[in-house]
């Protein structure tokens, strides 16, 4: 690598440094906008005891679900895990821990983590099991709970196009959690559909500036659709 050029040419390089018991933040919503090749590389590396922070956990046999199958995950931090039978089974067996987190709180935890804000107050979850054991405080007569932010040893992110410097844009609703995840990793790895030269992307249209990105790899995506519903 030279200067700001962050492109790597192998998945092994892309995920180099990942070790057992690390925390990995992953972008994506369901199977939409997930870094497929980076997830597959984690499976190849056989890294164990991982804490995965991601809105969902894929489905059986695809997306993050393949890491569950391979028993590499110790803990999931997610808002919704309903599509995954194996997840439920491992949870009931005690093989897996889960920290169910409201979706907006999860997004904000990543955003705050990446922005150097250690915690924030939110009304979400007050008076529910999510608020149990957390500090609460009233502002303008309304109670809020204190939620701590999240950072990861790695963040794995999927974008549509990036330049060699890591400036990137997302496509449609494949954006979702990816921009927040990108800011919250000590090492952030970006897997993209297309790499372009610096200067090709319009600066004012960049979603995630390259400063957050450490490595960029050209991916190859299946883009599986979880629920294909057509117009009647």
């Amino acid at each position, binding site marked *: 690598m030279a200067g700001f050029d962050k492109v790597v040419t192998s998945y092994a390089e892309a995920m180099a440094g990942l070790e057992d018991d690390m925390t990995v933040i992953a972008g994506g*919503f*369901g*199977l*939409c*906008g997930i870094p497929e090749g980076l997830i597959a590389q984690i499976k190849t590396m056989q890294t164990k005891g991982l804490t995965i922070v991601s*809105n969902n956990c894929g489905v059986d046999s695809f997306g993050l679900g393949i890491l569950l199958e391979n028993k590499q995950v110790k803990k999931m931090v*997610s*808002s*919704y*895990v*309903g*599509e995954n039978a194996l997840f*439920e089974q491992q*949870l009931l067996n005690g093989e897996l821990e*889960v920290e*169910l987190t*409201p*979706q*907006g*709180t*999860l*997004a*904000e935890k*990543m*955003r705050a983590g990446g922005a150097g804000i250690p915690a924030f107050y*939110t*009304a*979400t*979850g*007050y*008076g*529910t*099991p*999510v608020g149990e054991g957390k500090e609460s405080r009233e502002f303008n007569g309304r109670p809020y709970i204190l939620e701590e932010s999240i950072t990861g040893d790695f963040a794995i992110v999927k974008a*549509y196009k990036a330049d060699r410097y890591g400036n990137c844009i*997302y*496509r*449609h*609703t*494949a*954006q*979702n*959690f*990816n*921009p*927040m995840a990108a800011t919250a990793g000590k090492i952030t790895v970006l897997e993209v559909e297309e790499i372009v030269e610096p200067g090709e992307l319009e600066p004012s249209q960049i*979603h995630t500036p390259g400063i957050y990105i450490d490595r960029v790899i050209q991916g190859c995506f299946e*883009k*599986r*659709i*979880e*629920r*294909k*519903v*057509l*117009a*009647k």
Partner: protein
Amino acid sequence: MALSRDQIAMRVAQEFQDGDYVNLGIGIPTLAANFVPDNIEVMLQSENGLLGMGPNPTEEQLDADMINAGKETVTAATGASIFNSAESFAMIRGGHVDFTVLGAFEVDVSGNIASWMIPNKLIKGMGGAMDLVAGAKNIIVTMTHADKHGNSKLLQTCTLPLTGVNCITRIITDLAVLEVKQGAFHLTERAPGVSVDEIKSKTAGELVVPNEVPEMVFA
């Protein structure tokens, strides 16, 4: 007669006002999009990052990168915007979404709602529901008045883990429309042909019944 799912959705859609930004939960709430009156415009928010959700795509329009919060393939309506999850929940938590409509397992007279978890039975997670009930200006709960064993879902105190506290102001069931205020359910409308006595018998929490309870009107 008790309302069908479509009829509940039709009654929900009567609540919308021209220019409302609306978030619809999975199930009956989603059906309400089919019954928005022709003379008003509403814009649908999907919490995965889409404001201005359009219909499901044709085979030619199908795109893996265009889904809604239920993970179904959708299109973007004219004038839509697409953004990240933090932005999406900023508009929800910041009170910018006018209406949210969602289902529930239980609601109680304090406006508490339980909709996400049945201990030892269902562990799917809350998704965006806790953010939505904490943030929207108006929340409508749609559900059947009683479960399939005839047990009321409108309780004095919720028994299941809560999704939010003191946040529900209006409930539309297959039998009735009710407001939640001052520690009680207030009956405001009944489904055509449904008696006040039936509603009373299926409402476990305190129920205030005015002298006249009009029937819902469907165009």
